Each structure stands twice: as structure tokens, then as C-alpha cells.
């Protein structure tokens, strides 16, 4: 059965991920111009609201709230081109809303974009692909259709997928996503 993941665990994992990313960028010759570790581009997701609340108090990560997921994709491109660690934190509905920009930026543009996508309304006792909610059910098939590698975060033991899929997005120069199964705690 899936379990809720505590916000501090997610935030610590993201911080570690960005530390590793900064070290890799430094090896490429990128000089950091900022005190923080990296950027989280968010269109607020109810499913991950405990993480967003905790991020408000977090100084090591810079959060930019965007009006739309389309913007988040394009801002992520600019930050990556400019040598900054960045991730996009959205909800499945936002994925559906921004699929053309994901295609244009991350697939055709070959910009690495890492997504944390909340599966709002995912039932605890059902596989997401069998959810009675279309917004939950269609998420993984849509990612499959666009060849976006993805993994489920089904509990605290899965947070290692965050750095793994972040690295994957950089290695394959494209999109990669983790799906937050239950509402974060």
C-alpha cells in the first residue's frame, strides 16, 4: 500500500539533489551566482501543499510560483541554459495543460526538465492506472505516449527516485518525472 511522504524528507532530498547538481555544473565550468542551491518552479498543487508550506521557510531553495505550467517549462529552460539547477513541481492537471510546452521545450528543444507531479485524488487502494478519476488514470499513459521516463513515489523509501530521475533528465537531455502517489504529509 502506498504511504504519504513527509515534506522534510522530500525537501532534504531535493537539497541533496541540487548540491550534487551544483557540483556537476562546477565541473563543467559553471560559476554559481547565487547563495541558494537551486530553483523550484511551482504551480501550486494541493497534493504537495505540505511541501510548499515547508518551502516557504526554506532559504536554501528558491521557489518561484508561476501562473501556468507552460511558463514553468520555459523558465526552467532559461535557468538550465544559464547553468542553474531547477525542478518543476506541478499537478497532473498541469501536465495536461502544458503538454505542448513540454514537447517544445523538453522533447524537441532537448532541454532537461525534471518534474514532480502530484497525483491528486489517487486512491490509496488502487493502482493509478485503474483509478476511477481520469486525471489520475491518464497521467502515466500520457507520459508513456510522449516517451517521458517516470517513476512513482509510493512512500518514503522511494525518494531516491528524485535524484535518480533528476540525473536522468540531464543525461538524456529531455524530460523525466516522478509521480507523488499520496498527498505529502
Amino acid at each position, binding site marked *: 500500500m502506498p504511504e504519504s511522504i513527509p515534506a522534510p524528507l522530500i525537501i532534504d532530498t531535493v537539497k541533496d539533489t541540487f548540491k550534487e547538481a551544483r557540483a556537476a555544473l562546477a565541473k*563543467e*565550468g*559553471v*560559476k554559481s*551566482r547565487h547563495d541558494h542551491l537551486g*530553483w523550484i518552479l511551482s504551480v501550486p498543487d494541493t497534493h504537495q501543499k505540505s511541501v510548499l508550506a515547508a518551502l516557504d521557510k526554506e532559504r536554501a531553495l528558491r521557489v*518561484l*510560483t*508561476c*501562473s*501556468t505550467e*507552460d*511558463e*514553468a*517549462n*520555459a*523558465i*526552467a*529552460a*532559461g*535557468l*538550465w*541554459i*544559464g*547553468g*542553474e539547477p*531547477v525542478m518543476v513541481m506541478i499537478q497532473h492537471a498541469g501536465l495536461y495543460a502544458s503538454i*505542448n*510546452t513540454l*514537447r*517544445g*521545450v523538453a522533447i*524537441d*528543444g*532537448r*532541454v532537461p526538465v525534471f518534474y514532480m507531479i502530484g497525483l491528486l485524488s489517487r486512491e490509496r487502494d488502487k493502482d493509478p492506472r485503474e483509478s476511477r478519476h481520469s486525471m489520475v488514470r491518464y497521467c502515466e499513459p500520457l507520459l508513456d505516449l510522449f516517451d517521458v521516463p517516470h517513476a512513482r513515489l509510493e512512500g518514503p523509501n522511494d525518494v531516491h527516485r528524485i535524484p535518480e530521475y533528476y540525473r536522468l533528465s540531464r543525461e538524456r537531455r529531455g524530460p523525466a518525472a516522478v509521480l507523488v502517489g499520496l498527498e505529502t504529509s
Partner: protein
Amino acid sequence: MAMKPEAILRLIAARRGDAICVPTMTTAPAWRTLAFDDLSIGCVGFMGGASSLGLGLALAHPERRVLVFDGDGSLLMQLGALATNAGAAARNFVHFLFKNNVYHTSGAQEIPGGDGVDFVMMAKGAGYREAFALHELDDLERRLPHILTAPGPLFVQLHTTLADQTPMTAGMGVPFPTQVDALHSRLIALDSVR
């Protein structure tokens, strides 16, 4: 009066210094002839994304000016970007809007609201530090030193005629991923000599 977009871009190209520039749609063909192989990247393949792409670059490189050459039809596709851009409060961010009131590339259909859409008022309402409209090339020339140095985010609505070329007549130019690689590499190379 309305300005020729090519004349505007020539003026900016001559004064931009080491600014990163982000053209899109009908500003892209002319910009390619003025400033190829430099710190520019066209927004290609995700219409409406130019100012967001520029914002990301501005946030990554606060020491460098970022100039976005947006279109009115494009901006309408991502109007919420005005609030995001203003909220990010990047002091090095300049958002030029080339306002010709039509979707030129697809055959010059009028944009929703046509000439009556007041993007300056929207930008002010969204929270840009400064927002104003210019109709004459002389005015742009006179105000350009301020535009290129004043704390942003700045919004400059430029009333223009149609461009000589569109991406359909001139071609799309260098593919977007190639531009991405080139700018990424150039910025890293510039870091190595800092």
C-alpha cells in the same frame, strides 16, 4: 505613427552591449540578420514562451541584461506571464512588446481585442517596475539608454508596422535545440574568463 520592426531591432542591436536577447515569431528573422551567432536565443516551438524563457535567463544571470522581443499575439497566449515576470522582480529583465495588432505569421488575422488591448496597463497592473508605450523611433532612441540600464522589470510596448519577413517566409533559422546548446556553451565559456 508606427515603427518598422527592423528599424527598432537595428537600434537595439547597436546599443545592447552584452545583453542576452530573446526574439520570437516575426522579430526572429530580422534579428538573425543583425545578431547571429551571439548571446541570443529564439523562442521557437512554444509560442507565448519568450518572456518566460527570458525570465529564466535573467534569474540565472543577474549580472547581464536580458531583452525579450515579444509579440502581442504571443503574449496573449501566456498573459499570466506578466504577473510571474513582475513577481520575480528581476532587475535585469526588459520585456519589449512588438504590437502590430495581428497574428502576422498566420496571415495577419486581428488579435482578440485588436488595437484596443492595452498591454501597458496590464503590465503596470501586474507589477512591472515601469511600463510605457512608444510610437516613434526617435522616442525609442532617446529612451533606450534608460531602458538598457534602469532597474527592471521593464515593459516597453512598441507600436509597429508588419515585419518584412515572418518565420514562414524567411524560414525558422537555426533549430531551437542547437540554439539552446550554443547559448548554454557560450555562457559557460564566458564564465571561464570571468
